[in-house]
């Protein structure tokens, strides 16, 4: 904004949650060409240590790639990767106002009539993400493009390394799952897709009609097997105790919506592999959350709550998916 004068920030307020980035909303007012302007914006800043460690450039690029497409995302404005302005890298985006993200609110009773609509939109949008061409979106410039038969190994290697570096105590259930995953690899991906990486209820903005207005939290976005993204939402912990995919509809319905939107097939054995993988990935995130607190890099209570609430639940999810519970 080189032409702007009288720039004023007001109403700065931290938004709860955000274990991987600190998130604030604020109002930006300025004068330009003799006129007053004002916008409601979001600031996402890296914390000292995170539940997951990712490149903010990748997240920024993913949002930008989908802006204006069938995948609703907020508009990204500025990215700052240096530490000197706000101590840590950050980006600024337009705020999408008037919508909700909370799963607790969604499942609190007031939205029951529109839950099927939320489900339709949720998996249709995920299908659009899967259908998109990463090269046409320019994302292969910021994201590694693995071979179709290497997608699973790259992800499994990455998350096993998280256990090696971060676990504060042995994880016999997750380690057994990792051994099974290595011994029973899935078929090659049917195409290389953008993988959001954390596409679950709680990471999109919805309204009272069940429409979805923004897909958020792209910090784990990468290129890979589209079934990975579909399976993340089938991790049993994301049923929120409701016995439904994403807490919304039976899994078969979710898969049918996704197939229609993506034009892709769902091999049941491959989907099972990716669901179990995502249980391991989830456990890697909770293990990393505990580690960030233990090492003192991030003493936010959310880091503890994620670990206390979910470490054992995720172990039980692994057992359930492996048929051992």
């Amino acid at each position, binding site marked *: 904004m080189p032409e702007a004068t009288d720039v004023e920030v007001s109403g700065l*307020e*931290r*938004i*709860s949650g955000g274990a991987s980035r600190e998130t604030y909303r604020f109002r930006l007012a300025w004068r330009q060409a003799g006129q007053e302007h004002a916008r409601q914006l979001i600031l996402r800043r890296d914390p000292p240590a995170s539940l997951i460690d990712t490149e903010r450039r990748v997240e920024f690029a993913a949002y930008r790639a989908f802006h204006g497409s069938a995948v609703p995302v907020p508009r990204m404005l500025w990215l700052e990767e240096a530490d000197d302005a706000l101590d840590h890298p950050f980006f600024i985006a337009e705020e999408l106002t008037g919508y909700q993200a909370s799963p607790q609110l969604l499942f609190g009773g007031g939205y029951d009539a529109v839950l099927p609509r939320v489900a339709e939109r949720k998996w249709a949008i995920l299908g659009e993400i899967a259908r998109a061409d990463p090269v046409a979106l320019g994302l292969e410039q910021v994201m590694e493009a693995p071979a179709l038969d290497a997608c699973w190994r790259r992800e499994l290697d990455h998350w096993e390394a998280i256990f090696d570096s971060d676990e*504060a*105590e*042995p994880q*016999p*259930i997750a*380690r*057994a799952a990792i*051994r099974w995953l290595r011994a029973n690899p899935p078929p090659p991906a049917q195409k290389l897709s953008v993988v959001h990486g954390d596409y679950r209820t709680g990471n999109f903005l919805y309204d009272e009609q069940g429409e979805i207005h923004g897909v958020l939290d792209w910090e784990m976005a990468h290129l890979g097997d589209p079934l990975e993204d579909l399976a993340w939402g089938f991790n*049993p*912990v994301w*049923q*929120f*105790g409701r016995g439904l995919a994403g807490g919304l509809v039976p899994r078969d319905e979710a898969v049918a919506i996704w197939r229609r939107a993506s034009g892709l097939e769902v091999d049941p054995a491959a989907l099972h592999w990716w669901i179990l993988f995502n249980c391991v990935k989830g456990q890697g995130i909770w293990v990393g959350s*505990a580690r960030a*607190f*233990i090492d003192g890099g991030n*003493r936010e*209570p*959310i880091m*503890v*709550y994620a*670990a*206390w*609430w*979910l*470490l*054992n*639940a*995720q*172990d*039980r*999810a692994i*057992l*359930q998916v492996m048929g*051992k*519970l």
Partner: protein
Amino acid sequence: MTPEVPAVLSEVAQLLARNAQPGMPEPERANALTLASMLLALAAETWDGAAEMLVQENRAVAGLLGDAAAEGGLRLSALRAENARLRGLLIDAHVAAEATGDTARQKAIWAELRASTERRKLSISLV
């Protein structure tokens, strides 16, 4: 639970002291106090049974491994250290059972792993 309860309670104490000061932004104060209350509730739920759970589990795993559980004391930190040692050995035993195709051994280990999640299950568990 991991991170360990004493370290977390110490952090929650500092968090409460900070949020007792005037001038904290109300949304941040509300968020901090809500999370603090949730952590305190989980600590309260697990406190009474923590030592018994670890002693039971250490005996069960040691029995399964044919390992003499070390008596390092009854502090939770000592019981947890022994638990970590034994569960590390349990991983080795599981790998060995898979390598030799010892299905009976694998079944026994899976049973113990399932039991371990029952011992740790919280009232708010999602699974």
